[in-house]
C-alpha cells in the first residue's frame, strides 16, 4: 500500500520562493497584510509584549508587598500598577493571545484558505492594538488626580462613583475607557469573523459534528463575546457620557446608582472569565488526545458541556457582588447558578481524564503543561465553589483569598495552557521545534514558582489581608506569607525568561520540525511548517473528525466508525 505518503507532499503542490527582501518591504508586508496567519502572529506578538509589561507591573507590586511598611513605590503609583496590571492582562494579553491562536489555527483546522472577512480581521487587530497603545500612552499624556502622566488608578473594574469627574479629574480614566471601548470593537469584530469562518468556510465533508473541538470551543467563546463585550461597550459609552456630557447614569447625587455599574460591568466581567478559559480548554482538547495517542473521549459531551458553560456563565455575574447586599433571593439564585457551572466543567475534566486513561502518554513539555493545567484548574474550581457560597464570600470578599482564586484560574489554568499551546504549535508556526530540555526546565521552574506564589497567597487572605493595599503593618502575621509569595513571583519570572530565550534560540537553532512532528490528526498538520500563505494548494475534503488519521491509516480509518453508526439508523428508517 502506498498509503504512508505524508499528507504534506500531497498538499504542497507549489514551490515556495524566498528571496531576501529589504526590511521596509517586510514591514510594509506585515502592516498591510490580511493573511490570517500573519494577523494571528501579530496578535500573539503584541500580547506577549504586553504580557512582559504587565508581568513587570506584577513584580513591582510583589516587591512592594514583600516586606511590611515598604516604600519601594508610592501609594499613588501602586494604585496605577494594579489597575494597569489587571486591565492589561485581561484586555491586552488574555483576549488577544487567545484570539491570535484562534486566528492562526481555525482556518487551517477547517481546511480554509483564510478567515471569512480578511480585511475586517486586519481592522480588528489594528484597532485593538491601538487601544493598548492608548492605555499606555496615559503614562505620558494622562493627567489624573496627581497631575500629568498619571496612569488610570480606578482598578480594573472601575467602580462608580470613583470614576466620576469629581473623584477622577483629568484624563487618565478616559484613557482607560477609550482603550476598552476600542479593544472591545476589535474583539467583537474578530469574534464575528470566527463565527462566520467556522460556519461558512468549512472544507467539504467538515460537518459541524466533525469540527475539531478547538474550533467548537472558539465558536462558543465568540458567541459569548457578543453578549459579554456588548454590555461592556454600552457601560463604557454611559461612563463617557457621564464624564463628558454631564449625564447621570452612575451619579448618586442625581439619583443614579453606583450598583448599576457593578451589574453592567460584571454582566461583562463574568462571561469574560469564560471567554478566556474556553480557549484554554480548546487547547487541552487538541493537545491531550495527541499526547495520549487516543481520540478524545466523549466528543459530543464536550461540545454540549462547552455550550452549557456558555449559557450558564451568563447567569452568574452577581456572585462578584455578594458583599453589596443583594438580598436573600438574589444571593441564593447566584450561589446556585455558580455551583451549577461546576457540572459541565466537571464533565470536561472527567472526559480529559478518560482520554488519558489507558493512553500511551508522551510526556512532552506541551503535555506536562496540559497535565499541570488539569490539576490546577481543578483546585481553582474548588476555591471557586467555596467563594460561590454567599456567607463565605462575605467573609473573604475583596481579600487576597479572592486574588489567589482567580489567579489560580488565570495563571494555573489559562497561562499553563497557553504555554502548552506554544510548545505544541510553535513547530507549525516557525518550522522549528522548541527545545524540550529547556521546556522541561521552564515547566518545573514555573510550576514551583506558581505554587509558591498562588497556593500561599490564599493564606494572607484567610488571615484578613485585603486586596489593593499598598502596604501593611508588621504585626498582622502576613509578613512571612507575603515574602514567600513574592519569592515565588521571582521564580516565575526566571522561568518566563527561560521560555522567551527558548523561543528566540529555537527559531534559529531548533531542530527542523517537518509538517507533522507530533503525528497529530487535525488538518493544520497536513500542510507545511510554516504553512504557505494560501494554506492548502488544494482544498482538502474530510470524512471524519481525524482526517490525518484516516490518511495515515487507510486500513482502519475513523470514517468507517462513523459509517457504522449511521448505517443501522438508515436501515431502521427504511424498515419504517
Amino acid at each position: 500500500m502506498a498509503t504512508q505518503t505524508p499528507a504534506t507532499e500531497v498538499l504542497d503542490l507549489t514551490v515556495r520562493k524566498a528571496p531576501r527582501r529589504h526590511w521596509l518591504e517586510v514591514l510594509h508586508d506585515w502592516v498591510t497584510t490580511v493573511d490570517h496567519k500573519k494577523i494571528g502572529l501579530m496578535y500573539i506578538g503584541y500580547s506577549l509584549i504586553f504580557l512582559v509589561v504587565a508581568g513587570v507591573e506584577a513584580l513591582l507590586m510583589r516587591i512592594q508587598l514583600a516586606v511590611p511598611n515598604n516604600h519601594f513605590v508610592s501609594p499613588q503609583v501602586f494604585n496605577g500598577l494594579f489597575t494597569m496590571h489587571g486591565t492589561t492582562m485581561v484586555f491586552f494579553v488574555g483576549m488577544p493571545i487567545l484570539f491570535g491562536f484562534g486566528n492562526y489555527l481555525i482556518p487551517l483546522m477547517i481546511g480554509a484558505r483564510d478567515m471569512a472577512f480578511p480585511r475586517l480581521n486586519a481592522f480588528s487587530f489594528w484597532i485593538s492594538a491601538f487601544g493598548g497603545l492608548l492605555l499606555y500612552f496615559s503614562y505620558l499624556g494622562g493627567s489624573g488626580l496627581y497631575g500629568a502622566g498619571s496612569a488610570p488608578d480606578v482598578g480594573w473594574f472601575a467602580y462608580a462613583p470613583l470614576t466620576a469627574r469629581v473623584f477622577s479629574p483629568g484624563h487618565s480614566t478616559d484613557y482607560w475607557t477609550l482603550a476598552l471601548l476600542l479593544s472591545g470593537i476589535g474583539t467583537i469584530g474578530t469574534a464575528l469573523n470566527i463565527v462566520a469562518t467556522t460556519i461558512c468556510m468549512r472544507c467539504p465533508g467538515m460537518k459541524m459534528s466533525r469540527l475539531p473541538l478547538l474550533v467548537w470551543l472558539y465558536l462558543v467563546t465568540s458567541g459569548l463575546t457578543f453578549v459579554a463585550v456588548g454590555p461592556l461597550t454600552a457601560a463604557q459609552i454611559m461612563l463617557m457620557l457621564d464624564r463628558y456630557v454631564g449625564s447621570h447614569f452612575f451619579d448618586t447625587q442625581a439619583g443614579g446608582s453606583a450598583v448599576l455599574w457593578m451589574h453592567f460591568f460584571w454582566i461583562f466581567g463574568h462571561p469574560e472569565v469564560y471567554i478566556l478559559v474556553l480557549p484554554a480548554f480548546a487547547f487541552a482538547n487538541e493537545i491531550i488526545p495527541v499526547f495520549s495517542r487516543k481520540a478524545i473521549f466523549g466528543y459530543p459531551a464536550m461540545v454540549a458541556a462547552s455550550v452549557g458553560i456558555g449559557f450558564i456563565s451568563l447567569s452568574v455575574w452577581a456572585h462578584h457582588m455578594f458583599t453589596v447586599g443583594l438580598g436573600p433571593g438574589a444571593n441564593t439564585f447566584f450561589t446556585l447558578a455558580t455551583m451549577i457551572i461546576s457540572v459541565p466543567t466537571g464533565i470536561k475534566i472527567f472526559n480529559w481524564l478518560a482520554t488519558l486513561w489507558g493512553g500511551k502518554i508522551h510526556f512532552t513539555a506541551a503535555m506536562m503543561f496540559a497535565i499541570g493545567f488539569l490539576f490546577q484548574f481543578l483546585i481553582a474550581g474548588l476555591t471557586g465553589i467555596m467563594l460561590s457560597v454567599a456567607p463565605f464570600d462575605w467573609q473573604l470578599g475583596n481579600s487576597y483569598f479572592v486574588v489567589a482564586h482567580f489567579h489560580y484560574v488565570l495563571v494555573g489554568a489559562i497561562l499553563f495552557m497557553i504555554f502548552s499551546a506554544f510548545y505544541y504549535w510553535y513547530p507549525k508556526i516557525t518550522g522549528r521545534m522548541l527545545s524540550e530540555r529547556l521546556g522541561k526546565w521552564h515547566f518545573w521552574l514555573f510550576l514551583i514558582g506558581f505554587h509558591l506564589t498562588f497556593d500561599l497567597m490564599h493564606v494572607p487572605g484567610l488571615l484578613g489581608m485585603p486586596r489593593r493595599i499598598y502596604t501593611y503593618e508588621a504585626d498582622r502575621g502576613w509578613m512571612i506569607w507575603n515574602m514567600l509569595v513574592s519569592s515565588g513571583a521571582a521564580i516565575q519570572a526566571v522561568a518566563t525568561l527561560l521560555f522567551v530565550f527558548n523561543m528566540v534560540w529555537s527559531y534559529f537553532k531548533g531542530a527542523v520540525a517537518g509538517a507533522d512532528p507530533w503525528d497529530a490528526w487535525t488538518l493544520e498538520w497536513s500542510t507545511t511548517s510554516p504553512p504557505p500563505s494560501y494554506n492548502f494548494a488544494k482544498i482538502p475534503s474530510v470524512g471524519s473528525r481525524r482526517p490525518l488519521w484516516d490518511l495515515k491509516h487507510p486500513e482502519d480509518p475513523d470514517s468507517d466508525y462513523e459509517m457504522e453508526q449511521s448505517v443501522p439508523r438508515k436501515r431502521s428508517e427504511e424498515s419504517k
Partner: protein
Amino acid sequence: MSTTAVIPNSPNERWELPSRGVVGMACLIVAEAAIFVIFVVAYVFYIGKSLNGPTPKDVLTLPIFTTICLLSSSLTVHAAVSALRQGKRNLCSLWLAATVLLGGIFLAGTAHEWYDLIYHDGLTIKTNLFGTTFYSLVGLHASHVLVGLIMLALALWFSLRGEMGREHSEKLEVLSLYWHFVDAVWVIVFTVVYVLGR
C-alpha cells in the same frame, strides 16, 4: 490515494454552506442587541427615579406618524431586495428611494421632537435621570438609523447609476437585515419609552 487528500467515503452530495455575509450580519446584530439591552435596562431601571422634572408624562407625545414611516420602510427595503433579485433595477431604485425617504422622515421627526424637548420643555441630558436615559437610548437608536440611512443612500446612488445588478442582491439583502434590526429595536424603544415609561 496518493495524489489528493480526499478521503474515501467522503460524501458526493453537494457541499453548501450559508452565506458569510448573512452570518456576519447576524453576529453583528446579536452584539448590537446586547448593547441595546443594557441601555433599555438602564431606562427601565431609572423610570420614576428622577429627582426633578420634567417627567415623561409632561413632555413626551406618541410619535405615531414617524413610527409608521420607519416600520413601513422595512417593507420597502424588502421590496427593493426582491426587485433586485428579479433583475428589475429601476423598480429597485424606486423602492430604495422610498426607503431612504421614509427613514429620513423618521430622523427629521426625532430631530423635531428633540428640538421641542430642549428648547420648549428644557429637558437635556443633564436635567435628570429621565433626560439621561431618554437621550442616550433614543439617540443610540437614531445613530443606528443614521448609519443605515447613509448605507441605503449609497446603495441608491449605485442603483441610480446603474452599477447595481442581480449579482449584488445578496449584499443588499445583508444591508436590509441591518435595517430590519433597526426597525425591530424601534418597536422595543417605542414600547419602553413611549408606552410603558409614560
